[in-house]
């Protein structure tokens, strides 16, 4: 892979990376108020047009629980499959605080840059 191709790939990736980085923050936001059913997380993300297919979310949730950012428990459902409920661990809450801070700082910086350019 020569340098030129690398640059092209990087440019394409930047948008994807941006969305993926934000997705973690958004999932944590949805989990912050207690136990949330995974399908509800999906529904809300979808409504907000943050995801298109659910496939992107499951590996993320799995990694978050592996990294002890979230915890989950199974709950039996009367008319369906068992449900998985997620909530934030203390690690998750501090990560959320950090992400929140970073996001708002970034938002302000980007806004300033955008204004400066216009």
């Amino acid at each position, binding site marked *: 892979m020569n340098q030129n191709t690398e640059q*092209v790939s990087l440019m394409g990736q930047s948008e994807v990376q941006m*969305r993926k980085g934000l997705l973690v923050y958004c999932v944590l936001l949805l989990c912050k108020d207690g136990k949330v059913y995974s399908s509800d997380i*999906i529904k809300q993300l979808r409504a907000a*047009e943050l995801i*298109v*297919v659910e496939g992107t979310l*499951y*590996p*993320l949730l*799995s990694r978050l629980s592996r990294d002890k950012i979230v915890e989950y428990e199974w709950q039996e459902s009367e008319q369906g499959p068992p449900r998985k409920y997620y909530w934030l661990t203390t690690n998750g809450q501090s990560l959320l605080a950090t992400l929140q801070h970073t996001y708002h700082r970034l938002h302000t910086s980007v806004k300033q840059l955008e204004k400066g350019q216009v």
Partner: protein
Amino acid sequence: MNEITQVNLGRQAFTIAIDAQKLLRDYLNAVKKHSGGSEEVVEEVENRMAELLIERGVSGSKVVLVKDVEYLRTQLGEPGDFDDDSEDAASVEDDSSVRKLFRDTDNAMIAGVAAGLANYLSVDTVIVRLIFIALTFFGGSGILLYIILWLLVPEAKTNSQRLQMRGLAVNVDNIKEALAGADVSGATRRVSSVVGKVITSIAGVTLRITGLLFVIVGVTMVIGGAVLTIYGLVRGAGVAGIPIFPVGKEEVMVLVCGFIILALISSLLAMTGIALVRRKLSVPGWAIAAVIGVFIVAASVGVGLGFDVAPSIKARYDGLHHTRAYSVQPISRVHILGNNASYVIARGDTPQVRVNTLGGTDAQAIKVTEQNGVLTIDTADFRAPTNCSFVCPYGAMAAEIVVYAPNLDAITVDAPRDTALGLSNNGVGYEITDAAGGATSVATPVPPTPPIPASEPR
């Protein structure tokens, strides 16, 4: 017809068609592979599938069919969507990530050529548009270049083409991102500022008006060109019965080629106009290719033959003119009799009369006499064919008489009708008396010394 079996998803039993079950199994295996063999993910996916199927009403006695599995697939995403993020960089090492040039009709002002080029060159679209506008001032090459690119560069129609246009690898992740991105940009466009809308609508109106002008000019050029060509073929360009062009088959060919070139350029102009008005190119590619092909043939034949025949046409035109010069004594007045020629009175240090006639006409009949400082030019007996088409020197007259004189007191005209009289007097005032009509008309004001009219009005 359909064999069925049982399958367990999220501790729920489903009745499923064999082909659907096979599809489901393959899908789940692929998901497992892509999510790094994570049982946890697969388990959650299975639960979600069960939930989706129940929501869809496919449970109990209902049989899960292929279309249901396909529905699950669209909902959950392709196996590639389950890839762990950290492995993403590797997936772009794909040949398809090489950037390709497409027209970007999503961000188009006209046909998306500028937007597409901007994507390709990774610069702002505004810069590309400004370059096109700037190039337009160099003989319209910007417009020509735009049209050529419009014709040659395909439109990015599919999502994968849109990705290639932006240099992104065509993988499922990117396609989904592109789809999501399209939604976001649509939303951004909707909430764009009022100023932006005003500018866009002004640009739109301008484009439409320009398009309409293109159509009108193009159609006018085709019709005008056809009329001129037919006239040229039937009568030809010539004067006083002498043909100048076209003479011989070669020159006819040049004329026809000239018309074809004109017609093609005009129709291209009109087509561009229509496309600008409708914001859509309505001409199929093969037609444009044919037009360009015919244009190239006509242009090479026409230009080649044109160079061939140009010298003989020029020789024929130059051969038309015959000049007879008369030296005269100093004169103070010019008296013009008859009106069968065009006259030019010019300031010259030595008095001189030049009679220019077209080839074949007899200039002997034009009498130039000088007596007591009065120059009399009598063309009453001069008769020559004055019919001309396209080539009409001497103001459509058969002769031109140029009088050079240092100064003149007056010019009198004694002619039955208006005489073509060109004056090049360098500030010297001449007065013209129309003896026949009895009216005196002043050609130019005459300070400081008023001239004396040669003859009094009757």
